């Protein structure tokens, strides 16, 4: 057996004797862009899919060479990013906050390579951090939910129980309460591990439970788990609010609107900047001003959003931009009930108290 293995190695080595140096950097002047996706992969119909779409669109519009790598586990972020950088890719875009450690470690080793990361801040002079003001977008859809609810109870379903999604929740809460100060808000999280993004069964169960407790509109920020939420609201004739992409088309008439987080736009713009030689490192925020986050309005939900409501929402948008309405940011406040603690149930207060401010993201 030992001999067999040895022979495998030797055999494979012999097959490679022609190789004298590592894979060489191709000589043509095409800009080479690498995209490292997170665990969900490019077919998750959600977050990673959006990043993939942005990169593919850019590859169509500009003359670039695009290489997409999927990472099935934590251990492969590092070698994937390194592998792309070693091969002379000028721009490497990493998707998801889970890759921040790997990027923090590798980016200083390749100072001439440009990196970008979605959803996390990496403070290195060759890294662009692409961040979204999820709380503001959530405020808008929260306002819509608060205005439309008939039972006075709305729901929120988060995917993984992490700060990023609490940011969604907090913005949503404030939006709901702005439209309907007496509204009751139910909250559930699908899980604590990355499995939470791909668990439609549990999404459906949580939705049914919230509907049972009186909710008639449910905002679900849970990646691929959302499909289960949509099934449940269709079954019970209630409404859901989609997330990340425009998901209005998934169950037309049952999806009130979607909180769009334009990861595709961010990726596309970053590639465009690289192509034009205008890459800038540092934090880049996408908010409601540049439609980096927005609520979705199309033919599938036109009947659900009245002109009057639309006008009100636009007013809210203007107020946020002008600073008249200040949306609390969970990254700053570290508590889910900064304004009216009495409206929070106990568990949420507890999680708020123990939090501390670590990353202040201010406008």
């Amino acid at each position, binding site marked *: *057996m*030992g*001999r*067999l*293995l*040895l*022979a*495998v*190695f030797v*055999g*494979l*080595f012999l*097959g*490679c004797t*022609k*190789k004298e140096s*590592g*894979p060489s950097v191709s000589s043509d002047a095409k800009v080479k862009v*690498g995209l490292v996706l997170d665990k969900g992969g490019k077919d998750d119909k959600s977050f990673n899919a959006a990043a993939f779409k942005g990169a593919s669109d850019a590859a169509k519009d500009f003359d670039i060479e695009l*290489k997409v*790598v*999927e990472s*099935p*586990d*934590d*251990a*492969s972020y*590092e*070698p*994937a990013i*390194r*592998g*792309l950088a070693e*091969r002379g890719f000028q721009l490497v875009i990493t998707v998801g*906050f*889970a890759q*921040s*450690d790997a990027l923090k470690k*590798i980016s200083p*080793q390749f100072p001439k390579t440009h990196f970008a990361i979605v959803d*996390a801040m990496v403070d290195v002079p060759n890294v662009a951090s692409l961040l979204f003001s999820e709380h503001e977008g959530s405020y808008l859809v929260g306002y819509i939910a608060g205005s439309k609810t008939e039972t006075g109870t709305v729901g929120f379903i988060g995917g*993984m*129980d*992490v*700060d*990023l999604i609490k940011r969604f929740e907090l913005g949503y809460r404030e939006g709901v309460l702005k439209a309907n100060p007496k509204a009751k808000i139910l909250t559930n999280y699908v*899980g*604590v*591990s*990355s499995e939470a993004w791909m668990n439609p069964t549990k999404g459906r169960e949580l939705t049914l439970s919230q509907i049972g407790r009186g909710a008639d509109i449910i905002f679900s920020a849970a990646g691929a788990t959302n499909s289960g939420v949509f099934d449940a609201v269709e079954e019970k004739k209630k409404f859901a609010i989609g997330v990340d992409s425009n998901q209005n088309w998934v169950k037309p008439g049952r999806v009130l609107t979607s909180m769009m987080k334009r990861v595709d736009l961010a990726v596309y713009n970053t590639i465009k900047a690289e192509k034009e030689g205008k890459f800038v490192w540092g934090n880049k925020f996408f908010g409601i001003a540049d439609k980096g986050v927005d609520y979705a309005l199309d033919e599938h939900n036109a009947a659900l959003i009245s002109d009057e409501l639309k006008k009100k929402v636009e007013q809210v948008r203007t107020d946020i931009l002008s600073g008249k309405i200040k949306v609390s940011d969970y990254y700053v406040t570290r508590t889910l009930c900064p304004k009216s603690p009495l409206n929070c149930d106990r568990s949420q207060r507890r999680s708020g108290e123990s*939090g*501390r401010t*670590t990353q202040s993201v201010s406008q």
Partner: protein
Amino acid sequence: MKNLIKTLIPVVAILTVVTFVILVMGDNPFNVFQSIIWGAFGSATSIGYTLFYSTPLVFTGLSVVVALRAGLFNIGAEGQLYIGSLSLVAYALMFKDQAGAVAILGAVVAALLGGALWGSLVGLLKAFRGSHEVVVSIMLNFVSYALCGYFILNQFKNPFSQNPETSEVEAAFRISNWEAIFPHAPVNNAALLAVFCVGLVWWLLYRSQWGFDVRFVGESPEAARRAGLPVRMRLLQVMAVSGALAGLVGVNEILGFSHKMKDQFSPGYGFMGIAVALLARGEPLRVIPAALLFGMLQKGSLDLEIDSQKMTRDLAYVIQGVVMIAVAAQPYLSKKLEKRWELWTRN
């Protein structure tokens, strides 16, 4: 000459099948092999990564080997490595003030104990309740995932990060990387520990009374029972040792690399350990080459995905599968071949 042919023919067979698969996929086999080999051994850094991926496979491979020798199929190395890692990180975070060798030694012992505890649960149920170890250990895997999730997020959560991971362990608990030889690669002293464990397991199995009992129980359980051996006790102990070995994965991952425990950090090291153990045919010394082969494929396939347009890293699984089949078929094949060879040389 005969031996050479015996060795080469399975290799040729493996290469042929894999080449065929690559051709069907429409890629150039030469480039693909080149990419895998270059990815795994092309630079000091790549070799460092290959060694880093092989280290946990040595631990889990040994874990499965030990159980296998007692006639038990430990499919729960995955759960045992998680509990071992959890104990390790719990120790390191709760006793922060330790310094020097005591710190690392304590953490290693914690990992051993955690894994041993999880393994001996299987052993207890097997030895005293007659539950099937495969069923029990699969189910305990899920329990361990949940337990780790709970402790990582509720007890040891890193407040500075959104990732489901624990806080970082103090500097005293970190073991050194081999930066000088393998720059930027995470390979560390845990690799030495792995080699040491291989020797230790070999010695235990072949030179100690305990190993004598274990092998006897594994290969002739009925005779062992009738000879008055403490069969149940040995089964329990074997599972504890098996679990402890799996638990050491945490030393490589946490003390040597990430310095914190990430939820679900293992890409299935426990399950790959089964393949490693079978490839090694239950011999502790062969675990090292088998683990290196799998580590090489893991690292090489990642570079393959970057270099090749059509192949993805899944080719690594194809190769692993073909190798396993070749290994399983080898006794049969080599017998046939030997006969052919004899006929051929006579005429």
